[in-house]
């Protein structure tokens, strides 16, 4: 082979590698669409056939640190749940609060004798899992408890939610049940509306699919109901070695051969962050936890087992399409740019094919999600439309309608884009697939600089909410690689949740 042949072969190999990288970018959207295609199957493959009227004695553990402003109302609401009298007990585990939490809880203990208990940790600040374990040890030391509900101090359970969860525990194969956490701030802003729609996607869509597949990724931290047998089999405690204790509990339950069920009709309201910085802090903890678990369970992925479904191909794809999302985006950008340098026409075809698939998956996902929780979708219609961001929507439109931004739109103003301009536009579009993460990171900086709400909203509508989640995952890689300290920061709440 002469030098020219070597160069040609090298170019071909490089083009194939770039092509594969570019196509990898479509994986997350396709997996999301796969989950939403499975969601309707939940109409036929669900756990309702094995559910039955069942009202076990439920111990509710409420971890609380300086929750004096909200804990009293939370206890009142829990005592008003539609559940048989005498079969509920509330254990508030006070993590050495410095406000009036003890006084408020003790007053409620007098108001509801025998039903409300105050457990105080002398030394606090070790994190939620340690606080929960204090309460779990206490309730397990008594024989009264038949089921354990773990929740947050500031969430609101709709009146029928607990009984809709307990009915699944009538099946002894079920170890734990989780509910739909709906964003319920009394005063919403653009960010809480984005979160509310994200929860529709991640819970009402994805978790229905996970019910069908028989493998659940995570019990919601604020709504997890366990059978006594399950919590005992887990060793009577929650994992304290990672930032994702809820996911560890979920995985360990399933690894031991018990089912975890998502009940879409059980609704729990929660207040979510209203500022990008607070969201970043909360989600960074979750994302770092997921990175830790990806390593911890490295022998689990893509290894099917008869005992559980966590090793199935479908669950592995679901997990890694989220855990590796920034990598998929980077691969797509680099692949397309390299391909463009080798063969610009092929790059165009690959880009358009890929983004038409992504676009169709996106439209289907959004069109179904808005029907799953219409009130949430109506309240967040701007955020529904702008979920990926205006710029990413332009990327999608440029794939669907070639020439829209290089010929049609300039033509409307009597302008003509030069060849260099078209090149620059095309490369910008390819780069944006991953550069959007830098744009998203700047949203956090902007928030830290004290930008007003209207500017933050405008910026996030342009850059997108999805890219923010992606950038947080990337930040989690960096923090984990650097071995940054694991801090369990409490997400700041105002306590204003709609009842």
């Amino acid at each position, binding site marked *: 082979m002469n030098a020219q042949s070597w160069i040609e072969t090298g170019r071909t190999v490089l083009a194939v590698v770039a092509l594969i990288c570019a196509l990898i970018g479509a994986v997350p959207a396709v997996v999301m669409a796969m989950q*939403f295609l499975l*969601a309707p199957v939940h109409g036929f493959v669900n756990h309702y056939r094995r559910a039955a009227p069942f009202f076990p004695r439920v111990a509710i553990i409420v971890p609380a640190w300086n929750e004096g402003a909200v804990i009293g109302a939370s206890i009142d609401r829990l005592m008003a749940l539609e*559940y048989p*009298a005498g079969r*509920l007990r509330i254990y508030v585990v006070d993590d050495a609060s410095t406000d009036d939490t003890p006084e408020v809880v003790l007053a409620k203990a007098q108001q509801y004798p025998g039903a409300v208990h105050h457990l105080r940790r002398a030394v606090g600040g070790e994190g939620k899992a340690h606080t929960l374990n204090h309460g779990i040890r206490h309730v397990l030391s008594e024989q009264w408890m038949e089921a354990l509900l773990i929740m947050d101090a500031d969430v609101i359970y709709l009146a029928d939610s607990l009984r*809709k969860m307990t*009915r699944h525990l009538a099946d002894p194969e079920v170890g734990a049940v989780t509910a739909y956490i709906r964003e319920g701030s009394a005063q919403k802003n653009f960010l809480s509306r984005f979160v509310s729609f994200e929860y529709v996607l991640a819970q009402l869509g994805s978790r229905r699919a996970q019910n069908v597949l028989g493998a659940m990724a995570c019990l919601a931290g604020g709504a997890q109901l366990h059978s006594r047998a399950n919590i005992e089999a887990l060793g009577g405690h929650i994992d304290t070695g990672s930032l994702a204790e809820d996911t560890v509990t979920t995985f360990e339950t399933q690894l031991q051969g018990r089912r975890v069920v998502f009940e879409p009709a059980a609704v729990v309201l929660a207040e979510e962050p209203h500022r990008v910085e607070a969201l970043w802090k909360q989600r960074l903890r979750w994302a770092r936890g997921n990175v830790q678990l990806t390593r911890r369970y490295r022998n689990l992925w893509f290894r099917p087992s008869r005992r559980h479904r966590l090793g199935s191909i479908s669950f592995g794809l679901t997990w890694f399409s989220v855990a590796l999302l920034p990598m998929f985006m980077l691969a797509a950008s680099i692949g397309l740019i390299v391909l463009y340098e080798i063969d610009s026409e092929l790059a165009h075809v690959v880009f358009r094919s890929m983004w038409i698939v992504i676009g169709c998956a996106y439209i289907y996902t959004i069109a179904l999600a808005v*029907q799953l929780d219409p009130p949430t979708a109506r309240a967040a219609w701007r955020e529904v439309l702008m979920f990926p961001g205006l710029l990413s929507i332009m990327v999608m439109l440029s794939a669907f*309608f*070639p020439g829209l931004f290089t010929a049609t739109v300039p033509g409307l103003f009597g302008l003509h884009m030069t060849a260099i301009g078209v090149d620059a536009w095309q490369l910008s579009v390819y780069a944006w697939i991953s550069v959007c993460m830098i744009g998203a990171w700047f949203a956090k900086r902007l928030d830290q600089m004290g930008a007003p709400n209207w500017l933050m909203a405008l910026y996030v509508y342009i850059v997108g909410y999805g890219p923010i989640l992606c950038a947080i995952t990337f930040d989690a890689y960096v923090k984990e690689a650097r071995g940054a300290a694991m801090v369990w920061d409490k997400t700041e709440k105002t306590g204003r949740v709609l009842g």
Partner: protein
Amino acid sequence: MNEMTDEDARAEIERDRRRERRVVWQAALALGVVLAFVAVRLLLVGWGV
């Protein structure tokens, strides 16, 4: 607190089970939206990519 009879609880389970079937029709409608979008694309651009 309230006392719910077994019969009421069973009826509620059955109601929620039937309600889940609605998602099938919702998914069909969502697929219809995708098809409409694809049709617009075909109309304006044709089959090629």
